[in-house]
């Protein structure tokens, strides 16, 4: 049992904190949003420091890092809203490595080019809708009834205008199945859930931090607003939820890594809880920023919109609760409910 980060994980955190702090300030996030939700330079930089292949097998050119290491990076990535598909690319490449038989491609993915992603929702009539990084991904993995498909058609570069400024696009996909390992697909989706939960924790912590900093400087009624108990209680609640989300997200990722029997359950739970915690945190931070939080100029709105958007890429959260309920209690009787 080691609930805090290990020395190695702290070193990883440190390295990526420096990287994202330097390479993904909010100016970069804003610029990426104006140009479709993706920063080519940031992606190239990430590849250079090994961020695109860190959790891939060393045998194919990856960094052999653990999924837990990746979660540490996802947290930092979330804190900086980095406009690159770090999680989707990693999950897609790891899935491909698991499936096997694509070592060359996996090796290329480790270096960040081509760029890969996964379609979170099954394609309908050959089209996967709202694919994360779909506007820029060269490789899309998706799950159809028969198994996993691998699509290498060129991305359009056209982003769907969306709440979170993400590089979402619909993608027409091939129907060539490369694997029938449905469990591997489900595991990949759970990795996405666990890592996204970690990213939400980073986002939530940062947005509280920004709010607390602002509350020290902003004076109203002759005192810093940080001295108001109403505001303190709100931030304390938000922070408690975020730290709870942190422990759950990391436990879920650890469980995925070590293939615990409750790994999938924990990953689903972690995503729902972390998303809600982070959205609560962005709501509080925006509220306590007053009008400024609402202005484009302040960063808190960037966090607010992404906190909203990330989980919705997967669909209505209510259906995620329903999915977990099916796992917990079995599907409802008589086929009355899906």
């Amino acid at each position, binding site marked *: 049992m080691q609930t805090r980060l290990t020395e190695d994980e702290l070193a990883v955190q440190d390295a990526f904190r420096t990287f994202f702090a330097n390479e993904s300030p909010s100016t970069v996030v804003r610029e990426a949003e104006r140009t479709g939700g993706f920063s080519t330079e940031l992606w190239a930089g990430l590849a250079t420091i090994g961020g695109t292949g860190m959790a891939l097998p060393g045998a194919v050119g990856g960094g052999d890092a653990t999924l837990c290491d990746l979660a540490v990076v996802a947290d930092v990535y979330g804190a900086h809203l980095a406009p690159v598909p770090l999680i989707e690319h990693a999950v897609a490449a790891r899935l491909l490595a698991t499936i096997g038989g694509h070592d060359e491609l996996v090796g290329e993915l480790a270096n960040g080019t081509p760029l890969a992603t996964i379609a979170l*929702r*099954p394609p*309908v009539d050959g089209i996967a*809708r*709202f694919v994360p990084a779909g506007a820029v991904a060269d490789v899309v993995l998706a799950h159809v009834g028969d198994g996993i498909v691998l699509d290498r058609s060129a991305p359009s570069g056209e982003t*769907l*205008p*969306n*709440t*979170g400024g*993400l590089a*979402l696009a619909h993608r027409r996909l091939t129907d060539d199945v490369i694997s029938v390992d449905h469990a591997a697909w489900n595991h990949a989706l759970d990795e996405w859930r666990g890592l996204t939960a970690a990213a939400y924790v980073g986002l939530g912590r940062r947005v509280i931090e920004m709010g607390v900093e602002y509350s020290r400087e902003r*004076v*109203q*009624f*002759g005192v810093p607003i940080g001295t*108001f*108990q*109403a*505001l303190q209680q709100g931030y304390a609640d938000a922070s408690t939820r975020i730290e709870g989300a942190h422990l759950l997200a990391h436990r879920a990722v650890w469980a995925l890594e070590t293939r615990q029997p409750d790994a999938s359950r924990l990953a689903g739970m972690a995503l729902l809880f972390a998303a809600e915690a982070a*959205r609560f945190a962005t*709501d509080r931070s*925006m*509220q306590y920023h*007053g*009008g*400024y*939080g*609402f*202005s*484009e*100029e302040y960063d808190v*709105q960037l966090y*607010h*919109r992404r906190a*909203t*958007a990330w989980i*919705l*890429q*997967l*669909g*209505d*959260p*209510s*259906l995620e609760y329903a999915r977990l309920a099916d796992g917990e209690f079995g599907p409802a009787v008589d086929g009355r409910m*899906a």
Partner: protein
Amino acid sequence: MDFSFPPEAEAFRSEVRDFLATNLTEEMIEATHDGTMHIPALHRAMAERGWLSGPVPAALGGGGRSALESVILNEEMQLARAPIDAMGVTVIVAAILLEHGDDHLKQHVVPRLLDGSSLACFGYSEPEFGSDVAAAKTRAERDGDEWLINGAKMWTTMAHIADYVLLLTRTDPDVPKHKGLSFFLVPLNTPGIEIQPVPTMAIERSNATFYDDVRLGDEWRVGDVNGGWSVMKTALKYERGIAGGQFLSPPVIDAAVDWAQNHTRPDGTKPIEDPTVREKLIRALIDVEVCRGFAYHCADLANQGVMFGVEGSMTKLFASESYKRHCRDFHDMMGAEGLLTHESADAHLGGRIEENLRHSPVTTIYGGTSEINRNVVAEGHLGMPRAR
């Protein structure tokens, strides 16, 4: 108790509905996506019918129409998705000028505000003072017969299309903050004024306005020198009650019902069949009825000449907090499809829910934050001491 509307109010509601059906087009609403929450043609058409002067007390020279009619007008406009900001500002500024202004303002400005040919905006908040409005430090100093104004205002929404700003200034820095304030109505074409856009996370743009040695005659003063806070109270009285947005949610709920009834989920069912969706919709509709109750109550109090500061705060607090919740619930219900903004042709009903989702956070902030309104309720309604 009696919650019926008098026949003339019911007739007025029909009139408003007919008017909006004829005069408010989707194209007009569409045009507000440039960030300016104002439809000039609609505003003038309303003025023609006397609806801008209607809510202004007859004793002040306004239409003196029942506050019930104001709330009906508000309600119907919001249900029809017409922006109400310009109407609200016009009524409030006109009432203030009539109550506190001198003849110059009453004769030259008020008629043009009420006939829709001029527009005003508020200049209360400053970069450093939001909730703490009374701490304003924009200076107005006498310089011979004139006033010299220097400072900056924040959240002067509509300033870029308005003719006047109702400006809160400090005329005496050496007395307690509430006692050294004075109001001016400042023509926005006066030399020395600069207007900078303040874009927001939602569609609407606001403005920051800067005042650099702006010279003004005393005829533009509103109310007594250093009597600004009593003018402010008049403004707040109007703002938190009948002039506010108590019907923020219905357009969102309409859109949500439309989605729930027409969208097909991956499993072949429709959201409207899902008890979790049904309960959220009913909860939202209940909240709307609560807002309606508050709105009618405030109007009834206004009609009877009763101050409704506390009730206005309750209305604003409840309407905005519940609206924020509704936006989130129904935006979530749409899943990824809800992420599409108005710019996408595929967005459901022009991205209405998404647009409201982004707009909603500011509603618990502007015109008095929820925290401030709760303080008002705690102190004013429950008689609790000033919070520590």
